[in-house]
């Protein structure tokens, strides 16, 4: 899946994956996609709920070799 930027949040514990995601999203334009790599298991539920609450779209997510990947399109 295509993305405009990749954020490596592997090894970071909550709340850092979301804090970093939020900062990166601020740099993007509406419609652009940020790809996030995380290992914190809680990231899935939190990123999903956070994206919804601020109006971004979680376009896709996947798990590859223990790494959780998310694609979020800026709203």
């Amino acid at each position, binding site marked *: 899946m295509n993305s405009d930027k990749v954020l490596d949040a592997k090894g970071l*514990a*909550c*709340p*850092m994956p*979301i*804090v970093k995601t*939020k900062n990166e999203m601020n740099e993007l334009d509406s419609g652009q996609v940020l790809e996030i790599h995380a290992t914190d*298991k*809680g990231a899935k*539920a*939190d990123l999903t*709920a*956070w994206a919804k*609450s601020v109006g971004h779209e979680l376009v896709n997510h996947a798990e590859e070799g223990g790494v959780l990947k998310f694609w979020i399109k800026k709203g």
Partner: protein
Amino acid sequence: MSVNPMTAKEVATKVVNKESFFLLDVRNEDAFQDWKVEGENIQYLNVPYFDLLDGVGEILPKLPQDQEVLVVCAKEGSSIMVAEMLSEEGKTVAYLKGGMKAWSEHLEPVKVGDLKDGGELFQFVRIGKGCLSYMVVSNGEAALIDATRMTGVYTDFAQEIGAIITHVFDTHLHADHISGGRKIAEATNATYWLPPKDAQEVTFRYQPLEEGQDVTIGNTTITIQPLYSPGHTIGSTSFIIDESYLLSGDILFIDSIGRPDLAGLAEDWVGDLRETLYTRYKELSDELIVLPAHFMIMEELNDDGSVSEKLGTLFAKNHGLNIEDEAAFREMVTGNLPPQPNAYQEIREMNMGKISPDEEKQREMEIGPNRCAVR
């Protein structure tokens, strides 16, 4: 202003003492609705931490002026962040050290009774998840019943009181939590007993637990008398200890009864459940002190934080023991079931020895309340 960590033990003490405090839970709304720190005098506010990244100004008016606020999250990271932000606004704040993970894993030993010749009975209260396990001690020997996966708590406790663990029992194959029974038995060379009807698919060796095979602890006469009591599972077995205590497993609780569906056979087992509760238990002495394997609500805790009640009192007051009509009973225990415990199939497989997930995964499997009862 500084931010103070509060341990799960300290929070448990507050809950048992029915202290009033304010809890700000910064997990997702779903997670909060599903499971939280329960207490009779807790006031709650749930705002996910990711809604507070730009500041805590919006929630300040909702927090008490003159009371400490305890911030809680899943592991602790987000609660520290939010607590620090609140502290900068002048609030007196603490956070739950280790978060809900630590809350789920905290065990509090409470002595529930004296046995013959100086023997003692301890209840280990897992307050965050509502699980109860037991240690019977007599003359330097100890037996464990329904131990949780926090095995070090039991082995350390036994060491402190100078007892050697010689027998480990599970009343049934658990579906809500991971049993520590096998691990403890392996580490201490104790005998691990399981009801054979629940253990047909297990991958390890165990001693079949059957009615009539009393076990003696210590060199005196503390007997652990198994009583076959199916219904929650087909193998469920209760214990009568020292002729005074009835360890009822997941069959009978203080304010509810066991659910028959977690191994997939509610319709088949509802008859067994009724037979156990309404016939087998009815034949026992009303004076027996019932010690269950779970509690569901904080109201079930006694003032000292233990969970127990006389069998006679339960026959008088527990709704699940007072449904005359068999069809109505059947409807109650099969028609009105709460959601199943988190990952209950995986937990059963783990307890059978079929899978061996790592500790992080085990924690995740055990998230949430136990949900073994119907009311």
